[in-house]
C-alpha cells in the first residue's frame, strides 16, 4: 500500500471564500484558473492586516510601521526566493505581472545586447507576452525571430532544433502552455541554448503555480511568472535572473527607489534587486504574494501536482466518455505530460456559444484565442473553450462541466 498524500479538496475549497458564492441559483464552478486563480482567505487577510496595521512606504521611513512595511515587502521576497530555489533574494525582482517581467528582459537586456540580424528563437505556443516585445525588437533593431513549431500532439516539434538555434542569441519559451497544457522539455531546451551560447528565458507563468519549481536546477538566465495565477493578488509579478545577468542588464524603468545617488550630472543605480524596482513597489501585493507562497507550501506543491494530474486524467476520461466523437480536446493525451489546462471544441459549436451556456450553470470557462494567436493559427483554430484546473477543483466540478457541455451540445445540435 502506498501512502499517497491526496488532497482534502473539501477542506481546501473552504479556504476560498468566493467558492461559497451562489450564482444563478447554483454554486460557482470555477474552471478558469489558467486565466487567474482564486484567493484563499489567508491571502485576503494578510493584505487587509497589512493595510490595517502596517501601511507605510518602504525603504525610507524611520518609524515602526515603515519598518514593518519594509519587512513585509522584503519578507515576501525571501519567501518567493526560497519557493523557486533562487540562490539569493537579490535575484528576485518584483514587477507588475509576467508581461512586465518579460518586457523588462526584452527591453532592458535585449535592447542593450542584441543587434541587427541576431537570431532570437521562441516557440509557436507562446503567450503574446513572449511574442509582442520581440516583434518590437524586430522593428527597432532588426533581430531575426525564429519559431519552434508545435506538432499535432501538442508537443514541440524539435526536428529542426539545431538549425533553428544555429547562431541564436536567445531562446525564450513557456514552461507550460496556457492553451494546450503541454509541459515543455525544459532541461533539453536550456541545454540546447547553452550549447550555442544563447541565453535562456523561461515564461513560467503557468508552471510555478502548479509544479514545484527550482530555477537553479533549470539553469536558465531569466524566469518570469505572475502572482495572480498562484493564489496571490493581481498587480505583482516576478522576474528571477542570475546575479551575473542582472548585473549586466541596464535598468528598465527609472526614477525613485532604483538609485543610490542622483546629481545634476547623472545617477548611480541601486543594488540588486532594487535597481529594477523604480518607484513605490506593490507592497500590499507583495505581502499577499508572500501569504500565497505560504499557503501553497502548507498544502505542498507535490500534492498539488499529483492532485492535478489525477483530476486531469479524470476530466479527459469523463468528457470523452460523455461527449464521444463530438468533442476534441487539444494538447497531450497523457496527463503526466501536461498541466490541467483543457482546450476543447465540440462539433462546430463556437466556443463563445459554449461558454455562454456554461454560464447559465455557473460554470466559468474561458473562450477565445487565449492570447496565443500564432498557436491557434498553426492548429487551424479560431478559438477554443478552455477549462483549467487548480488545487480547489474536484471531480464534482468536472462533472458540472460535463453536464453543461452536454446541454450546450444538445442545444446547438443541428
Amino acid at each position: 500500500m502506498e501512502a499517497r498524500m491526496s488532497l482534502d479538496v473539501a477542506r481546501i475549497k473552504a479556504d476560498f471564500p468566493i467558492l461559497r458564492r451562489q450564482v444563478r441559483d447554483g454554486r460557482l464552478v470555477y474552471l478558469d484558473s489558467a486565466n487567474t486563480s482564486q484567493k484563499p482567505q489567508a491571502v485576503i487577510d494578510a493584505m487587509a492586516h497589512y493595510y490595517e496595521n502596517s501601511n507605510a512606504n518602504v525603504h525610507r521611513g524611520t518609524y515602526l510601521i515603515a519598518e514593518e512595511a519594509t519587512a513585509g515587502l522584503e519578507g515576501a521576497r525571501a519567501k518567493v526566493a526560497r519557493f523557486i530555489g533562487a540562490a539569493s533574494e537579490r535575484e528576485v525582482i518584483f514587477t507588475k505581472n509576467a508581461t512586465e517581467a518579460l518586457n523588462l528582459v526584452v527591453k532592458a537586456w535585449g535592447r542593450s545586447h542584441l543587434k541587427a540580424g541576431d537570431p532570437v528563437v521562441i516557440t509557436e505556443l507562446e503567450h503574446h507576452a513572449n511574442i509582442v516585445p520581440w516583434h518590437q525588437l524586430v522593428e527597432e533593431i532588426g533581430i531575426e525571430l525564429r519559431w519552434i513549431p508545435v506538432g499535432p500532439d501538442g508537443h514541440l516539434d524539435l526536428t529542426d532544433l539545431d538549425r533553428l538555434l544555429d547562431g541564436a542569441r536567445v531562446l525564450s519559451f513557456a514552461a507550460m502552455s496556457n492553451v494546450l497544457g503541454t509541459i515543455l522539455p525544459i532541461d533539453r531546451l536550456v541545454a540546447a541554448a547553452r550549447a550555442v551560447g544563447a541565453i535562456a528565458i523561461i515564461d513560467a507563468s503557468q508552471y510555478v503555480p502548479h509544479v514545484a519549481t527550482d530555477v537553479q536546477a533549470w539553469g536558465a538566465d531569466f524566469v518570469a511568472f505572475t502572482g495572480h495565477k498562484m493564489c496571490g493578488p493581481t498587480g505583482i509579478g516576478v522576474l528571477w535572473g542570475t546575479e551575473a545577468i542582472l548585473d549586466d542588464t541596464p535598468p528598465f524603468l527609472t526614477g525613485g527607489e532604483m538609485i543610490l545617488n542622483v546629481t545634476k550630472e547623472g545617477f548611480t543605480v541601486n543594488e540588486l534587486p532594487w535597481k529594477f524596482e523604480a518607484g513605490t513597489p506593490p507592497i500590499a501585493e507583495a505581502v499577499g504574494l508572500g501569504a500565497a507562497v505560504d499557503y501553497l507550501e502548507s498544502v505542498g506543491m507535490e500534492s498539488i501536482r499529483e492532485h492535478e494530474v489525477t483530476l486531469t486524467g479524470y476530466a479527459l476520461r469523463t468528457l470523452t466518455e460523455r461527449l464521444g466523437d463530438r468533442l476534441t480536446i487539444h494538447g497531450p493525451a497523457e496527463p503526466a505530460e501536461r498541466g490541467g489546462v483543457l482546450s476543447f471544441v465540440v462539433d462546430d459549436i463556437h466556443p463563445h456559444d459554449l461558454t455562454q451556456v456554461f454560464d447559465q450553470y455557473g460554470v466559468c470557462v474561458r473562450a477565445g484565442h487565449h492570447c496565443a494567436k500564432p498557436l491557434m493559427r498553426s492548429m487551424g483554430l479560431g478559438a477554443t473553450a478552455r477549462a483549467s484546473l487548480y488545487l480547489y477543483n474536484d471531480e464534482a466540478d468536472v462533472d458540472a462541466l460535463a453536464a453543461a457541455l452536454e446541454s450546450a451540445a444538445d442545444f446547438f445540435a443541428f
Partner: protein
Amino acid sequence: MPGLEDLYREIILDHYRNPRNRGELESPPAHRSEGFNPLCGDEIVVYLAADGTTIDDIRIAGQGCSISQSSASMMSAAVKGKTVAEARDLVKAFKAMMSIHEHELDGEDGAPEPAADTPELKLGDLEALRGVVKFPVRIKCATLSWNTLANVLNEIESASSRPQ
C-alpha cells in the same frame, strides 16, 4: 435554454445554421474588408460588389460565434440590392439598436441624445438581435460584421469621390 431565450432566438439560430450569402467575390473588382474581434478571435471578411451606388452582391467569409455569424448573414440579406446610402442608414439603425450611437463612437461628448439622428428604419429580422443588448460582451460579436461593412462603404465612397 432557460435564461438564454432572448439571446438565441429561433431566427438567429436559423441564420447561424443556414448562413445567407456565404462565400467570396473576386476582389478586385469587388471591395473587400476584414474585421477582427480581439476578444474572442472572430474574423469576418465582407466582399461587396457595387455598380455605381447600388450594392449588387455581397458575400461573407470568416468564422465566428452564432451571434456574429447570424448577424452577418442577416446583414447581408438586408443590404443586398440597397444603395450605399441606404446601407449606411441601416448600419446606423442597427448600432442604435445595440445602444451604440455614432456620436459616442466619434468621441464627442455630451449627453447621448435619444436616437434623434437615427433613421427610423424597419430592421425586420434584425430585430431578433435586440436581446443581445442584455449580454454586453456579445454586442461586439453582433456588431463585428456591421463595422466591417461600414469600412467597405467608406472605401466605396472614397473611391467614387476620387477623380478617375
